[in-house]
C-alpha cells in the first residue's frame, strides 16, 4: 500500500527471506481469546506485524428486519482498517477492498458456522485491523474463528487461514507485506483442519499447475500450524491449566 519499489533481496542464496525466515516458516503468531467484555465473543491476534481485534455479537435480533431468514440465522461480517493501521492515513470509510474482504471472510466462515438452530437471528462479526502487514485477511479470519468459538456459536470445525505465495521463483509460506508487493503470486487459503476442507482460496498472480498445487499444499500446512495456536488460545481461556 503506497510502498515504493525497492531493490530488497526477497530470497538470498541460502534460502533466507527478506525478514530472516526460511521458506516454510510462518511469522510469529499469538492469539488471545475473550479480550472484550461487551462482545459475546472476542479474540486478539498478532500475526507477524499484523495486530487485529475481532468481536462477535449474537445470535441476536436482525436489524433491518427484512434481512432476517425464517429458516436459519444469518452471518454478517465487517472487516475494517483503522486510519493508523497503515503507513499513510487510511480513510476510515469502507473502501472497495474492505468490502470485498468482508465478503470473502463471511463466505469463508459460513461453511463452518451452524446457524440453522437460530432462525430469525444474526451473528455479527466485527474485525478491526489495528496494524496491517500483508496477509491481514488470513489473520482476520483466524481471529474471527476464535471469537466465534468464544461466543459459543456452534461450529462444524475451526477455520484456520494462512497464505502462501511465489517469491523469487520459489513457493514460500506466509508472505509478508514486502513479498506481497514485490513477489510473483499470493494465495490466501482458509481451511477446516478436522474436516479437511478448504473454505477460501484466492490467487493473485500467475502460477503453473504444478506450482499451484505446491502453493495450495504449503498454505494448508500453514493453516495446520495456525490451528494449533487457535486451539491453545481457546484452551487457555476456558480450561486454564487443568486438563481432564
Amino acid at each position, binding site marked *: 500500500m503506497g510502498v515504493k519499489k525497492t531493490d530488497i533481496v526477497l530470497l538470498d542464496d541460502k534460502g533466507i527471506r527478506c525478514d530472516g525466515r526460511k521458506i516454510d516458516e510462518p511469522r510469529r503468531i499469538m492469539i488471545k481469546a475473550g479480550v472484550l467484555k461487551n462482545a459475546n465473543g472476542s479474540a486478539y491476534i498478532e500475526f507477524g506485524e499484523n495486530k487485529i481485534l475481532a468481536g462477535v455479537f449474537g445470535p441476536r435480533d436482525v436489524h433491518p428486519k427484512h434481512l432476517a431468514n425464517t429458516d436459519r440465522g444469518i452471518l454478517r461480517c465487517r472487516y475494517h482498517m483503522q486510519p493508523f493501521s497503515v503507513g499513510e492515513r487510511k480513510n476510515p470509510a469502507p473502501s472497495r477492498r474492505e468490502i470485498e474482504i468482508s465478503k470473502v471472510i463471511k463466505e469463508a466462515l459460513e461453511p463452518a458456522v451452524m446457524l440453522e438452530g437460530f432462525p430469525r437471528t444474526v451473528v455479527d462479526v466485527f474485525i478491526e485491523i489495528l496494524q496491517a502487514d500483508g496477509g491481514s485477511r488470513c489473520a482476520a479470519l483466524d481471529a474471527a474463528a476464535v471469537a466465534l468459538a468464544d461466543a459459543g456459536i*456452534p461450529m*462444524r*470445525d475451526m477455520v484456520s487461514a494462512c497464505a502462501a505465495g511465489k517469491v523469487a521463483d520459489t513457493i514460500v509460506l506466509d508472505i509478508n507485506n514486502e513479498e506481497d508487493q514485490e513477489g510473483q503470486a499470493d494465495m490466501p487459503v482458509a481451511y477446516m483442519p478436522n474436516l479437511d476442507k478448504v473454505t477460501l482460496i484466492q490467487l493473485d498472480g500467475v502460477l503453473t499447475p504444478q506450482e499451484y498445487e505446491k502453493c495450495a499444499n504449503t498454505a494448508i500446512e500453514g493453516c495446520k500450524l495456525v490451528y494449533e495456536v487457535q486451539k491453545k488460545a481457546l484452551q487457555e481461556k476456558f480450561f486454564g491449566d487443568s486438563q481432564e
Partner: protein
Amino acid sequence: MDDIKRKYVIPGDVITTGPYRAEENVHLFGDKIIATTVGISEIFDSGVRVIPLTGMYIPRIDDFIIGIVKSHTSLSWELNINSCYAGILPAADVFGRDFNPKVDDLTSRLKTGDLIAARVANSDRSRDPLITISDRDLGKIEDGELIKISPSKVPRLIGKRGSMIQTIEGATKAIITIGQNGFVVVSCEEPEGLLKAIEAIKMVEEQAHVPNLTEKIQQMLGSNSE
C-alpha cells in the same frame, strides 16, 4: 454412571468414532463425532454430548427462568430472558381469562424493569418463546439483587443435588433464586449476607472449571465471617 469419559473439547475436535448416538452440541461427519462448541465432552452408554462452557441461553419447554420486563403491547409483555429471542408473556396469564384489553392496563401489574419468576410454556424457534407465570411459586419478584451469570455455569452454581447453592444459602442466610437462563436473584435481610452471597456466586462463575469448588466456597464464606 461411573464409566462416563470426559474430555475438554473445542469446535472441530473429534470426540470419538464408532456407533454412538450424537446428542447435544456434536455433529456426525462420516463416522467421526465432532464437537461443535467449547465444552466438556461426555461419552456414556451409547451417546455422546458436549456440555457447553459458553454460549447463549436457548429456551426449552418447562425451564424455570427469570425474566426482566422490556416492554408491552396491548396483549402481552415482552421479556428479556437473556436469549436471542424475547420472551412473550400473554396478558391473560396475569389478568386471568376475563382479560379485556380495552379495560385492563398492563402497566398496572408489571412495569418495565420488573423481575418475574416464570416458566417456558412453549418454544419451537419458529416463534418467540411463550412464557407463563400461572403456577405455584411463579410471578413477580418483589425484592432482591439481580446477578447475571453465563447460562452454561448454572448447573455448577446449583451443584450436585443442590450442594453448592445450599452451601451459599446456609452460610449467608440469603435466599437465592436461579433461573436456567443465567439470571440469579439474591435477597437477604442482612446486607453483609447479601454481599457475601453475591461474591460467592461470582466466584463460582469465574472458577466453574476448578475441581473441589464447593470446598473452596465453604472456605471463602467461612473465612469472611470470622
